[in-house]
């Protein structure tokens, strides 16, 4: 404003401002790390109580979880194999969350992506491998993306709650897969487990050099990085954050709220669909009921634990991959049912949701009052 002539000493002096900034930033970062950590510990403590109550020694259980998830190179590779799809299914929830949406149909998008990829892979038999793999990836992403974009569009145009609609669409997707693998796409040779035809070994994704972990892990990490850069460093990401922070301000600024909402849903769904494609092209070779083994649901948990930060998804996915990987060991050594790991996950989820109330309250302690 031209009318303001003098710049008085009102504003904090630059040096003081810069210093305050650092402490503020540090405080905010420290809080962002501390809250999920506290939630993890609280969830773990609850699970320990649950173990005690059911007659197990929690120390032994946790020791086994550690051994099963992170104790040896074998358990590490098992953990990372499980982390790979989680990286992508978590993005399904995390990306739309930046725009204020809560979508949780991760499992369905993964399954559809897997079926689409398997169908294309089977149909392209004889094509060059590179072409087929890219086509499978695109098919998976499109299938998953469109499925969730539907929930976004319903929300934007008809005001339908996206949480419910994405979940219902997910059930629909799983039913659709069952129909397809038992009907039109069924490989007659698959007798007791109806599946699509095998895509052929030539189209399978290989392992990362020097390991027996498939390249899906690397793809997942790269996609997380891309999403982070998109949200944090691009115009589109800025617009998305504005929509997430205040839709009224976004409309005031003339931003296209609808395309952004639907686009973010598509992106999240595409990531989950890609996870399905990778499960098919790197693990099973065909689509069948083993696609729906819970990577989608665990992905919701990963996204919330990572507080919808695409970078934080990477360590969190590995942690939960490890917990999942240890279930076999728990079962063998302690005769614990498979579901006990799910109980742990459930308790963690509750603790995370509850920990949101700490937001903003810890910061003063970290920025040194």
């Amino acid at each position, binding site marked *: *404003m*031209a*009318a*303001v002539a*003098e*710049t*008085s000493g*009102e*504003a*904090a002096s630059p040096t*003081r*401002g*810069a*210093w*305050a*900034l650092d*402490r*503020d*930033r540090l*405080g905010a970062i420290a809080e962002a790390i501390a809250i999920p950590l506290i939630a993890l510990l609280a969830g773990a403590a609850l699970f320990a109580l649950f173990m005690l109550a059911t007659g197990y020694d929690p120390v032994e259980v946790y020791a086994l979880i550690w051994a099963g998830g992170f104790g040896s190179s074998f358990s590490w590779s098992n953990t990372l194999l499980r982390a790979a799809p989680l990286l992508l299914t978590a993005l399904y929830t995390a990306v739309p969350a930046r725009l204020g949406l809560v979508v949780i149909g991760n499992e369905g998008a993964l399954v559809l992506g897997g079926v689409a990829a398997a169908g294309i892979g089977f149909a392209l038999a004889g094509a060059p491998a590179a072409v087929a793999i890219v086509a499978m990836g695109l098919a998976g992403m499109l299938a998953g993306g469109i499925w969730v974009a539907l929930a976004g569009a319903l929300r934007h145009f008809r005001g339908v709650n996206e949480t419910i609609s994405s979940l219902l669409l997910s059930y629909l997707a799983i039913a659709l897969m069952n129909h397809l693998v038992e009907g039109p796409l069924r490989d007659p040779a698959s007798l007791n487990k109806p599946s699509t035809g095998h895509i052929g070994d030539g189209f399978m994704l290989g392992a990362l050099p020097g390991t027996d972990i498939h390249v899906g892990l690397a793809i997942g990490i790269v996609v997380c990085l891309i999403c982070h850069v998109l949200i944090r*460093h*691009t*115009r*589109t*990401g*800025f*617009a998305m*954050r*504005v929509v*997430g*922070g*205040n839709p*009224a*301000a*976004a*409309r*005031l*600024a*003339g*931003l*296209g709220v609808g395309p952004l909402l639907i686009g973010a849903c598509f992106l999240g769904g595409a990531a989950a669909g890609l996870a399905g494609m990778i499960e098919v092209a790197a693990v099973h070779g065909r689509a069948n009921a083993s696609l729906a083994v819970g990577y989608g649901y665990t992905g919701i948990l990963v996204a919330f634990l990572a507080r919808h930060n695409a970078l934080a998804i990477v360590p969190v996915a590995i942690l939960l991959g490890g917990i999942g990987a240890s279930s076999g060991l728990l079962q063998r050594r302690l005769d614990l049912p498979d579901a006990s790991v799910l109980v742990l996950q459930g308790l963690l989820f509750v603790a995370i949701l509850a920990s949101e109330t700490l937001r903003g309250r810890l910061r*003063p302690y970290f*920025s*040194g*009052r």
Partner: protein
Amino acid sequence: MSDALSLETVGLTKRFGAFTALDAVSIKVRAGSLHALLGENGAGKSTLVKCVMGYYHADDGDVLIGDRGQEIGSPRAAAALGLGMVYQHFTLVPNMSVAENLLLASGKVPAVVDWKAERAKMTRFMDSMPFRVPLDRPISALAIGEKQKVEILKQLYLDRRLLILDEPTSVLTPDEADEVLGFLRGLVDQGRLTIVMISHKLREIYAYAEEVSVLRQGKLVGAGRTADLAAPELTRMMVGVETLAQPAARAPKPAGDVVLDASGLVAADDRGRRALDGASLAVRAGEILGLAGVSGNGQRELVEILAGQRDPEAGAVKVHGERYAADRAAARKHKVVCLPEEPLKNASVPTMSVAENLALRRFDLAPMARGPWLSDGAIRRAAEKLIGEYRIRTRSPATPIAELSGGNVQRTVLARDLSEEIDLLVVANPCFGLDVKATAEIRAALVAQRNKGAAILLVSEDLDEILELSDRVAVIASGKIAYEAPIAAADRQEIGKRMVAH
């Protein structure tokens, strides 16, 4: 109702990180008095009263209530002592009714609500008030002035003994303010209530407060009886020795072409009630059209339509003779800037930083964007420039805007929007919550834009502001334009009459 409580703070200090918002502030408020708290935007007024209410925890110092030292850990504890506060930003639940909000505020909602008894009690209470609001109406459907009245009614309903009001009248018209403050003053005189009131309006302070304390940059710089302090002295305490910006003279030039042409606008409010009922108006280049009206007569919907936040049911908006779509491309092409009221809610993103909020209009243009990429450096540099020019009090450009004082949020939004090149400016109540100095500056900036040739639609509930700034005056009542006259022919009495006529 029990008796009024006294309040004293002793050496109250509050730091946010390395920033000291309150520096050993000691104030004394007698029981049964109305005490005003004054200071520039960001002086620390809200912080001080939030410390008293247990909303913030002071780093140092004591709070005495009724001469007894109290450790107030939370607003709930404060309520138990008989303290209540009307915050600067609304604390009502938007999608619940007035009655539900009143019940909620009592803090002890029973498992099963006996609505019949509660309603009877509320109706009796409302009937005893000089100003009232329909109990069944959802908060989201209330005009800003009505919301503020609900906030005040809520506190009165709860039988407070010490009431803190953070800028209670910034969203009320002078007449409404007199109604509310006159009534509160009566309660104080009966010895039932002590009031601490934060305000930027000297007129009110002289009319209703007997004592005043003045804060500047977190320190107490003066206190005394209003009867002993002349207005220039108070202003000097608040802003130091600086002089106020004088509004630039309105260059006497004839208005140019029609820039904004809105005709036959019809729109429903959030409740589906018809709020705009065929309103038409035109604004020419180089003129300020002041639109007066009692809040709730369609001005909010009108501004929302122009801002692209609401779709009209009928009617057309044209800018420069073309149909105006109110999206980013159209706003940019026609250089249209819209500034709705309640900036924290309508015009900024609370979770994003001051710098990002300042970039809201230009983040997708060079130099802030290079191709698809954002340049953090350019965003920060642009922010630093605006923060300096408009003297926004923020610790750094990276501070979330929600952490700024109320007046500084307003300044941030105004800095972003008034620094644009403008052909058409639509502003609603631009000076709500601004201190005297900032108010003078913003008004000067509006006139400067007008002199540069911008067409300005100034929607305001402050008739003085309208009469001071406008070239032409219009009145909106029941969703229609009820009066229009050039400023020379505008008649205050007539305007007042048209505002309330139905």
